């Protein structure tokens, strides 16, 4: 029930982000969600793409430090308090969230991409609470 995220380390230099995006475009890879965590020195680019393994490989080949990270993509209904409910379940079970960002794939539902400190445990909690997730396969099919 997990999905692969492509993570790319980029040192803060002008044009570096653009280069990553060019590589993806040239290889016909579609970006569904993007998050950039930055410090003064470097940025960590996190991407949900339709072809994660291929994206990782072409980026590595182009000289970028890129890797695959297993994350959860959790469906969140468009309702007030929906996200809060999901996070409460996770917190109750003492799982910590490392980072999180949004992903919008359907007109009715939103999703969030989440990395936790304990992936397997988080999967069980979500399954046990009937919270839906998207896998890499689902993403590829979008």
């Amino acid at each position, binding site marked *: 029930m997990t999905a692969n995220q492509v993570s790319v380390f980029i040192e803060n230099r002008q044009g570096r982000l653009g280069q990553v995006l060019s590589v993806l475009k040239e290889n016909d890879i579609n970006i569904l969600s993007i998050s950039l965590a930055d*410090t003064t020195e470097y940025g960590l680019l996190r991407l949900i793409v339709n072809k994660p393994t291929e994206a990782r490989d072409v980026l*590595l080949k182009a000289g970028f*430090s890129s890797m695959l990270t297993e994350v959860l993509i959790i469906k969140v209904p468009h309702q007030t308090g929906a996200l809060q409910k999901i996070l409460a379940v996770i917190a109750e079970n003492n799982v910590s969230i490392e980072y999180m960002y949004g992903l919008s794939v359907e007109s009715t539902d939103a999703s969030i991409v989440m990395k936790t400190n304990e992936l397997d445990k988080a999967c069980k909690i979500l399954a046990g609470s009937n919270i839906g997730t998207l896998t890499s396969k689902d993403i590829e099919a979008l």
Partner: protein
Amino acid sequence: MIWNKEMECMSPEDKKRLQSERLVKLVKYVYDNVEFYRKRMDEYGVKPEDIKSIDDIVKLPYTTKNDLRDTYPFGLFAAPHSDIVRIHASSGTTGKATVVGYTQNDIDVWSECVARCMTMANVTKDDIIQVAYGYGLFTGGLGAHYGAEKLGAMVVPMSTGNSKKLTTMMVDFGATAIACTPSYLLHLSEVLRDEGLLDQIKLKSAICGAEPWTEKMRNEIESRLHVTAHDIYGLSEIMGPGVACDCVHHAGLHICDDHFYPEIIDPKTLEPVADGETGELVFTTLTKEGIPLIRYRTKDLTSITREACECGRTSARISRFKGRSDDMLIIRGVNVFPSQVEAALVEVEEVTPHYMMIIDRENNLDSLEIQVEVDTKYYTDEIRGIEKLTKKISQVIQSALGISAKIKLMGPNTLKRSEGKAVHVIDNRKLY
């Protein structure tokens, strides 16, 4: 004013005679007491008897920092350990430090030389001098301290690290002289200005050394602080500060050449070059007992003149330094070799051997940034993982160099690869 007129203003003939006598004695002394020199001289086919005057010095082999490393820690000591009263150390080219030892006589000679230099800077027994070089293994602090005491000045052993206390005491004590690195003195001038203390200080002399500096910096120091700023030179292998200094005429640095015999050589051919031509400075420690060195290659590039100076001193003078014949850097007064960085980074599994050192000077303080490429397999997608790695590298570097550096992680293949000799240093300070 001249501290030791007899030695400093000696006629060239007498100086040569004295240097000759001392060299003959020195060569016999090291041959008898240092296995390293005995072997090396035997290899060169030169015996102590072959050295009859200072002109014969060219027959002797050179000594380098690597020889000190290879004989670490005490292999080049000529005096028995019971006669050694002090140890100092400086950066080696890799892991191990360069260690030197002093007998009581060496300390006395050193103090005498520093006293001469301070006198060139118009410091007398009536002065109050703040010594703001580091005290410890580094020769700067204790060397300047003993010299100033020999002079009879009132010495305030500030050491380094507390500018606020230093400026407060400078005002409260009415300090008239200071010994520190020129870049630190410029920094202090800004601290004094910011604290509104510039018109309350009584400084008149500054003895600046331990790093290369320019005429422009001297002008800057002199105009900001209304002092005369003097360039004191030395290196621990030869003695420490006090090997040479410039007088009020600022016409080159007077070498205490009755103790340290200078030569200038072509660093490539190792042949002597004519007076006035630039080359590498080489010293022979004519009177040293603890760790006497023969034809030690300083790697500092300069030229020499033996003409008498307007001040009356006849000692040989070296020009302002024009660079180094090796890749040693002086950062915040600390000697740093890129090879030390390289050796330290090898210990860090996560990084590749590719690195770049960027040295800059901001607000008159040196900054060092080290960019390292991280091995692709060690990247993490979490900021905290990267911060942890940065911290780890930073600690390894700090312990290897003795100074802190800002670490910047780089992606694979982002550092420029050079064809031929690798370039690992960008020095933006323009010190030569």
